[in-house]
């Protein structure tokens, strides 16, 4: 569980993270979205104790990260897949981390197999592709099987199979009661992976809620045998009706049941009736437009 309260970071007179608060519960995958420079990575680095906060607090499992007895065993973190010594082999890199965490060496082989890097384990990391480094970073985060995972842009460099694998990994982790915080710029990927969205813009949280509620519905699209007559009936019932781009009628602020009731009362034959749902991309740009 991660609890962030009033977290603020200022560099000189510039505020890059401004009074950010949220609580992440076990059993959930939370997507952390925001445009470049919005403060996602700085927030995550403050949670991990890598960047000191100007004010506010971030607790992992009830304590500041730096106060955890064996922090890597509580939160598996992937912030920058390139932050590794290129001269070490993948296996040596993981062996050093495993020894620091106090997990058996056999676990290194297990996570290497999990991320499909067994065959590259004896190669120097400098020769790895971005996707391989990303998988090595995920392997390192999973070494101690920690209850909390915090990944910054983990899908970078992964191929479609890898992205699907990672989605399954994170969902499975939450399914076993784990807590996951995931930042990504791949909006479609986030939409299909997370339960909850945190949207940050200009250093402030601009939206926080379940995916379904944030995407929500934004009216109804309806087609009728006599669209003009239906439009008059809907307008008469107090609904705002506008023509769609493909001959349909767009009824703002109405539910399918509302439109169905008006149509039934007036004897209008409907050929199509569906709620209009906003895509994550629309929500993202609406919320983060400064």
């Amino acid at each position, binding site marked *: 569980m991660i609890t962030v309260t009033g977290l603020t970071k200022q560099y000189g007179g510039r505020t890059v993270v401004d009074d950010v608060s949220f609580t992440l519960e076990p059993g959930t995958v939370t997507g952390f979205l925001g445009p470049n420079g919005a403060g996602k990575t700085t927030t995550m*680095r403050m949670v*991990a*104790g*890598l*960047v*000191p906060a100007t004010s506010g607090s971030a607790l992992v499992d009830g304590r500041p*990260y*730096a106060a955890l*007895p*064996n*922090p*890597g*065993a509580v939160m598996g*973190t992937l*912030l*920058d897949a*390139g*932050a*590794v*010594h*290129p*001269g*070490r082999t993948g296996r*040596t890199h993981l062996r*050093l*981390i495993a*020894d*620091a*965490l*106090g*997990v058996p060496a056999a*676990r290194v082989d*297990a996570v290497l*197999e*999990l*991320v*499909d890097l067994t065959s590259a384990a004896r190669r120097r990391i400098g020769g790895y592709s971005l996707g391989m480094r990303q998988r090595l970073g995920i392997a*390192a985060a*999973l*070494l*101690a*099987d920690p209850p909390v995972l915090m990944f910054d842009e983990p899908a970078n460099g992964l191929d479609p*199979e*890898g992205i699907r*694998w*990672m989605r*399954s*990994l994170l969902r*499975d*982790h939450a399914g076993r009661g784990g807590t996951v915080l995931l930042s990504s710029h791949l909006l479609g990927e986030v939409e299909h992976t997370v339960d909850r969205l945190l949207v940050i813009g200009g250093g402030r949280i601009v939206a926080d809620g379940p995916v379904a509620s944030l995407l929500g519905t934004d009216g109804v699209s309806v087609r009728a045998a006599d669209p003009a007559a239906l439009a008059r009936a809907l307008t008469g019932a107090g609904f705002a009706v506008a023509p769609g781009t493909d001959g349909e009628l767009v009824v703002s602020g109405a539910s399918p049941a509302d439109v169905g009731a008006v149509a039934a009362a007036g004897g209008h034959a409907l050929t199509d009736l569906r709620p209009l749902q906003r895509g994550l991309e629309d929500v993202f740009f609406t919320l983060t437009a400064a």
Partner: protein
Amino acid sequence: MTAAVIPSSRPVVPRRSGASLSAQVGLEVRKSLSTRSGVALVGAAALLAPAAMSVAVASSAEPLSSPTGPVVVTGMLSVLVLLALGVLSTAGEWTHGSVQTTYLLEPRRTRVLAAKAVAVAAVGAGVAAVAAGLATGVLALFGPSVPFDGVGRAVLVVGIAGAAFALVGAGIGAALGNTPGALTGVYLLNLGVLPLLQLFTPALADAIDPGNAVLSLAQGSEQAQSITVLTVWVAVALVAGAAMTRRRAVQ
């Protein structure tokens, strides 16, 4: 890629507490020796003193009164290489970004620097002593016949110098957090600033030059002052390194 299920037949049980300081020192030694640059530096340091002694023995026809001077002087060449080992152990992590992993596993930065300091001091002392021992061997085998009284002390002092110089490198590396900058700084200081100072204010240069302190220590003169000079160099570098490391954000 295999199924995204973390094997649960044998649950992973990590240590409840962080690694002990001795375990961290061991990890830092392994880190230094798990890269080609680390191994190359240790190898170069171990071989430089005997190589220099070979050249000296082959090119000098003058009789020797004592082996102490040649052993310490050639040993100091190895010790200078160990400055770089210290720099790489701290600044190298900032340059590569691997310091992020280090602090995610052990957020107590002063403790990490302490472990690194003990690790490079141990490696530095060991490698410098081996280098001085090999140089002594070369002198014994191929050099003029001299009494070897005091050579044990010379090897010991070179070992101490190896530890001290590696610590100075680690401290300056931690303070600057940048490998090229730290390497340039330490070598400019030792091979540029101090020799220049020797030209203009020789008394001051003699008083603060760590190389001079090592030579004096080996010859048994000005013991307290020599130890003080080396201690001050190490302390200033490590305190600066600790202060800068504590406050620097890991970006």
